[in-house]
């Protein structure tokens, strides 16, 4: 068709038409996403600034090494890979929905929108599990000469510097009974699986003998800002995914009601699509900054 010829000859900036050959709604969506990119950019750059101002930063391979249903098996980055693929896949289904929209194929749009929504919900579920795992998973932390239990929260970080095994051995002798029970229960030496109530009745020195220090990875407290940024930024991203799912559900309902067929175009699907892809795009950088480097 003659599009390319038109593109070259048109005086785009002379008024009476869009210089971008776009209707205003899509243009505003693009500019909104640009400003949102600066919101996320500011978050991630702040994270980078704090990280650059620290001598020590936790290794993501150590922090994110769990997978649902596998206990303490060391699977670095496996779960977040799954999350990433879910999001990429949902981006593909979204772009297919937009494609069907171009062809005004209502059934096609609905099918792919449904898959996109499911992908979004799956991603959010994964994120919920990961947050839950980090917040509730208690680790032994070396504080003031003894071992305490701590999890990854907004105000604390158990992924600090390694502690010398000899120091850990010494610290265990002065640590509380509850801490030792927890460690012995979670990280028993091979062949010494003991029931929890039995552990609770054991004396401290016997508990110490059961704990597998290789697995327990006793560390110092790490940089506090790690948790704040992790929950803050993935939370803000998750909020975007959530609102994207809501928008997609609204779009699906409108499609089902035939609103776009009556309007003669599926422009709203395109705009929702832009938003959804942006969420995927942000994840590329969240994934990069928190999990990979």
């Amino acid at each position, binding site marked *: 068709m003659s599009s390319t010829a038109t593109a070259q000859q048109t005086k785009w900036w002379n008024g009476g038409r869009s210089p971008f050959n776009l209707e205003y709604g899509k243009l505003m969506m693009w500019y909104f996403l640009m400003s949102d990119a600066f919101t996320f950019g500011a978050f991630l750059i702040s994270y980078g600034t704090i990280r*650059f101002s620290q001598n020590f930063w936790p*290794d993501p*391979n150590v922090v994110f090494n769990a997978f649902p249903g596998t206990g303490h098996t060391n699977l670095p980055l496996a779960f977040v890979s799954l999350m990433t693929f879910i999001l990429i896949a949902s981006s593909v289904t979204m772009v297919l929905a937009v494609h069907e929209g171009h062809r005004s194929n209502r059934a096609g749009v609905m099918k792919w929108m449904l898959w996109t929504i499911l992908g979004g919900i799956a991603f959010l579920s994964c994120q919920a599990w990961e947050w839950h795992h980090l917040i509730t998973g208690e680790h032994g932390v070396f504080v003031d000469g003894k071992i305490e239990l701590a999890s990854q929260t907004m105000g604390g970080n158990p992924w600090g*510097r390694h502690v010398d095994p000899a120091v850990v051995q010494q610290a265990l002798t002065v640590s509380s009974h509850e801490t030792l029970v927890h460690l012995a229960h979670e990280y028993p030496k091979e062949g010494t699986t003991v029931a929890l109530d039995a552990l609770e009745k054991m004396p401290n020195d016997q508990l110490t003998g059961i704990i597998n220090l290789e697995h327990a990875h006793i560390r110092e407290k790490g940089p506090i800002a790690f948790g704040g940024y992790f929950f803050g930024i993935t939370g803000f991203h998750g909020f975007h995914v959530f609102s994207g799912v809501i928008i997609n559900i609204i779009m699906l309902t409108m499609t089902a009601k035939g609103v776009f067929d009556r309007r003669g175009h599926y422009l709203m699907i395109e705009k929702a699509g832009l938003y959804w892809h942006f969420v995927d795009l942000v994840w590329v950088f969240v994934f990069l900054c928190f999990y990979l480097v």
Partner: protein
Amino acid sequence: MEHQAIASEVTFHHHVPGSENVRRIIKTFWLLSIITIIELGMGFTIYFIHKNPDFSHGLVLGIKGAIVILSLAKAFYIVSIFMHLGDEIRNMIMTIVVPLMLFIWFIAAFLWDGNSYKNLRNNYDKHFQERTTEKKGGH
């Protein structure tokens, strides 16, 4: 297909032929997946390098740099193919890409000052340095 005007300000509509478009989308999907897998592989490499107590910081930095470049490639494909920016006219591409250049100085200055803050504290607060620097042979 019949031209349906979306809005009066739009001069022409471009349509990528159906099957070709789908093929392109699927191709991009595989591309993104492969890049992600390569990135993960590099992430694991860092993990194993870290296991060695005297690992080369330069090597780790190099791998991290490569991961950043790969991520930018992913971003390019998402914006260009999935968000169809590559199909828009040049004016549109420029109006999106040019403002993003601001990120260069944004990132450089912030990280530079973050690093400088660390050096200041290490110089003037030896307690901070001693408390937070990884001891030799830590891993």
